[in-house]
């Protein structure tokens, strides 16, 4: 890990982002276990450095598309954890007025074009956002997050090829956390690096350490710049690990079965993106320890406030089912 070419401001932003995602997701996990959240939640713990590093290279004009595991992307793009938390509770004050839930959070005002619950379903839409940028002669970049599992969907293939054929400003970020649900990537494909698929579309394919937020930042910056320069799309594969369940409460699905070993999990924790960054900042004396502690306390507090606000928000009115249908 190193921060060459990265300003202290940016570093602090990235660190803040990683931490905010972590604290948010930890709270969501608790809430889910307490039976307070409806539906399914898929947490981003262990993968925070990917969204944090990538989104730190983007402006508010740039857009992202997310997945079922989307809370981290929303936060990294600058989303409001209050409105997100309220949405997880299904409340009227949520981002989607309770109509979306965990798998469908969007904030169009900050270029977060939505999470998509269909695996791979967001990739073509990101190509379209890139097409817009190209059409409008804008410097906007369209970033698409998706998993290793999604890389086996037809939408992945068609989308990367389409973006390449039209030379669009899209950055495809594959979060290879080694599993699609309970199926290891190694069983779902006979290649080590998904980035190798980029060659099949004539675009660059880069592997990055998804535990290293600073590396993610540098790689994404290169890809985003390439896109802005009119040189077309890039595929970035972030090697990462999800620390918890596929979906919270996966124990119920597993019913005593296991799909990854304790050693594997321990090895993954050893590369905890939050810890790595925290340690690096400490070792390099980049920011005072007290500042980091205050930051953590503030974030933890804001998450708590988000929960309180969400809990105290009203349910959507039944009549609102008929709203938001037609323009």
């Amino acid at each position, binding site marked *: 890990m190193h921060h060459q070419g990265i300003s202290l401001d940016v570093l602090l932003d990235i660190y803040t982002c990683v931490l905010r995602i972590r604290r948010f997701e930890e709270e969501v996990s608790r809430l889910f276990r307490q039976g307070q959240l409806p539906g399914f939640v898929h947490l981003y713990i262990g993968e925070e450095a990917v969204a944090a590093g990538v989104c730190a290279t983007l402006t508010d004009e740039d*857009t992202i*598309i997310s997945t079922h595991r989307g809370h981290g992307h929303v936060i990294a793009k600058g989303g409001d954890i209050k409105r997100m938390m309220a949405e997880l509770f299904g409340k009227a004050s*949520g*981002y*989607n*007025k*309770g*109509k*979306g839930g965990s798998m*469908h959070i*969007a*904030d*169009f005002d900050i270029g977060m*074009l*939505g999470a*998509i*619950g*269909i695996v791979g*379903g967001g*990739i*073509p*839409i*990101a*190509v*379209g*956002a*890139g*097409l*817009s*940028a190209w*059409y*409008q002669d804008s410097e906007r970049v*369209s970033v698409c997050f998706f998993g290793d599992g999604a890389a086996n969907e*037809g*939408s992945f293939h*068609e*989308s990367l*090829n*389409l973006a390449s*054929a*039209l030379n669009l400003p899209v950055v495809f970020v594959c979060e290879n956390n080694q599993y699609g649900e309970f199926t290891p990537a190694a069983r779902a494909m006979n290649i080590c690096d998904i980035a190798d698929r980029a060659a099949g579309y004539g675009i660059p394919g880069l592997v990055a350490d998804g535990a290293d937020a600073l590396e993610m930042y540098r790689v994404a910056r290169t890809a985003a710049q390439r896109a802005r320069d009119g040189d077309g799309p890039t595929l970035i594969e972030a090697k990462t690990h999800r620390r918890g369940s596929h979906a919270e409460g996966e124990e119920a699905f597993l019913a005593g079965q296991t799909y990854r070993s304790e050693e594997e999990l321990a090895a993954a924790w050893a590369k905890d993106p939050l810890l790595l960054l925290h340690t690096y900042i400490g070792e390099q004396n980049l920011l005072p320890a007290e500042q980091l502690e205050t930051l953590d306390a503030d974030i933890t507090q804001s998450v708590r406030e988000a929960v309180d606000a969400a809990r105290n928000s009203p349910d959507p009115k039944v009549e609102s089912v008929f*709203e*938001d*249908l*037609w*323009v």
Partner: protein
Amino acid sequence: MPRKTYVAAIQEALSEEMRRDPRVFLIGEDVRIGVFPSTRGLHAEFGDKRVIDTPISELAVAGAGIGAAVTGLRPVVDLMFGTFLYLAFDQIANQAGAMRYMYGGQTKVPLVFMAQNGAGSSAGHHHSQAVHQFFMNMPQIKVILPSTPGDGKGLLKSAIRDDNPVLFLHSLSLGGKRGDVPAEEYLIPIGLADVKRAGGDVTICAAGPTVYTALDAADALAAEGIEAEVIDLRSLSPWDKQAVLDSVAKTGRFVAVDESFPTCSAASEWAATVAAEAFHHLRAPVQRVTNKDVPMPFSPTLEKAVLPSAEDVIAAVRRTLA
């Protein structure tokens, strides 16, 4: 009034709207050359940027349309044949057809999907299915199936100006059909039916090619003194329920004629609605005339046998009079 073909009228709608609004563009497989004349000549006028050829990738192309629509453009996505929509079904049903609602009204999806619908060219099952019934089921998509050049042009222009996703289906079997197309600018509102023939004895509801089947049947019946009212729905979702109910209130008899497989078809919807909402006017059972319930065969003889015919409609009308 100038007379134009159905496909020429579609092309005219596209070119006029592209001239009017620089955000409107066309994307799809071979739209430059124009596999159907509906897109021909547009590339010459509007160039590579606004008439975009794509790889054969229906899912991604449909999704790209959606992404462009939510970021400020007004795409027309040409998916060529109705059956190719099956490959883009997820993007249409799960994404375009729900996004605005799912995101709590944060966005709009001003997008037209365009495809040829139905059979009639002996191309076999993979190129000969009507697909409108699937998309009528989706709560947040409008569906159009015009029967005349004039309606096609006016409705496509409305579709392009609509801020919601619209599936504009055009019938391959009507491509060469000629009809009046006003020279001056005009729009036909989505959701408004057109009574193509007035009559007091029976209401026949149709769309696209079955309008002609119904009109042929009506002509034959008129020779016997039976006057059928033929309603061309033009828009399938939303559809002009009131026009149909009003007509049934007058005639007391109802026949739905729909080119599609019978079960859960548009004909089922129309018949069920009439039976629910005009029941007390009905003097005879509602009738449905659709494809026979088999995949679409290739041989012209068999294809003809599977499609709804004027004879089928006449027989259905007779059943309402029995």
